[in-house]
């Protein structure tokens, strides 16, 4: 095995991808060749400083592509990926962020007086569901953030898409 052969194989040596008998030959050459040994050190250092792929990049690309297509990301995330699978938590799916923001603002504008009026009409002991809904709706510190999502205390942000839509329908029907 000459210097050219050994240098070609140094990345695989760094990766641990060489068959034992090939690795033995490479190591034997390196033990007696200062130039190749220096090159090995360079390759090892490069390998040790290999930059990571940013976490969440896969999801970001998929979101951008599907936003372009107007479709949703297919299931099976990561099934074909062999490297980084550190996906960042995805935002709630089902409604675009602008719709959630608009829905929340509408709910605040219409829902608060409606809920107050309903609570006034409610029996002395309201059922649990009514109380939970009122508590969620009337919780302060709800603000529309720049991207249309809700910031601050949980309040409406804690509702699922289905709950939010149901609330809106109910509010619109009652308004």
């Amino acid at each position, binding site marked *: 095995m000459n210097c050219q052969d050994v*240098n*070609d194989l140094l*990345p*695989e040596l*760094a*990766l641990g*991808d060489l068959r034992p008998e090939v690795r033995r030959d490479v190591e034997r050459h390196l033990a007696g060749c200062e130039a190749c*040994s*220096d*090159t*090995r*050190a*360079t*390759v*090892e*250092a*490069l*390998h*040790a*400083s*290999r*930059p990571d*792929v*940013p976490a969440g*990049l*896969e999801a*970001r*690309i*998929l979101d*951008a*592509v*599907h936003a*372009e*297509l107007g*479709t*949703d*990301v*297919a*299931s*099976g*995330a*990561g*099934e*074909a*990926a*062999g*490297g*980084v699978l550190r996906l960042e938590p995805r935002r709630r799916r089902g409604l675009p962020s602008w719709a959630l923001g608009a829905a929340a603002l509408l709910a605040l504008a219409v829902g608060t007086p409606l809920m107050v009026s309903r609570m006034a009409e409610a029996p002395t002991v309201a059922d649990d569901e009514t109380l939970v809904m009122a508590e969620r709706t009337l919780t302060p510190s709800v603000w529309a953030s720049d991207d249309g999502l809700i910031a601050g205390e949980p309040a409406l942000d804690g509702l699922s898409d289905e709950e939010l839509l149901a609330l809106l329908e109910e509010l619109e029907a009652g308004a």
Partner: protein
Amino acid sequence: MMPARRDDPELDDTLVERAQGGDAHALDTLIRRHYELAYRVALGLVRDPDLAADVVQDAFVKATRGLDGYRGESSFRGWLATIVKNEGRSALRSAGRRNESDIDAVAPIAAPGSGAAERTILRDEARRVRAHVDRLPEKQRLAVTLRIDQGLSFREVGEMIGSSEGSARVNYHHGITKLRTWLTEESA
């Protein structure tokens, strides 16, 4: 641990055909198979992680728009790499090229050892040698990083940088030799 190899052109062609027919799952699978490689190509070009992420995202959007135009004359990975490189160069033109890296004098790289002290030294030197990579000419930089960071063969590196296998090998070895030379000069 290195990512799994994604060099299966026949599978790619099948996925492309299905994606061209409107199969969103096939499109997602193509993206998942190749986004890491696309990122490393972009990073090798623009040398900035945030900009590389923007580049690779834009490249995939453009590749999706142009997927119907892909006829399989080259491999899908090669076709995608061309789009990534075009996007990367466009991004560099927009951002203005960065100046050459300002690299402090560094100590020579030691042979890897097994002890904790040797590992610490190697980590420090690893950061230093990585900084030198940015000084390499584009093809040498890509050949070195794709060979070592992504574990591509010389044939695959050639496919990514638009050259032959032999040219990829030459670019790689020239790049490694320059890195060694710069490190030696710094230690003198």
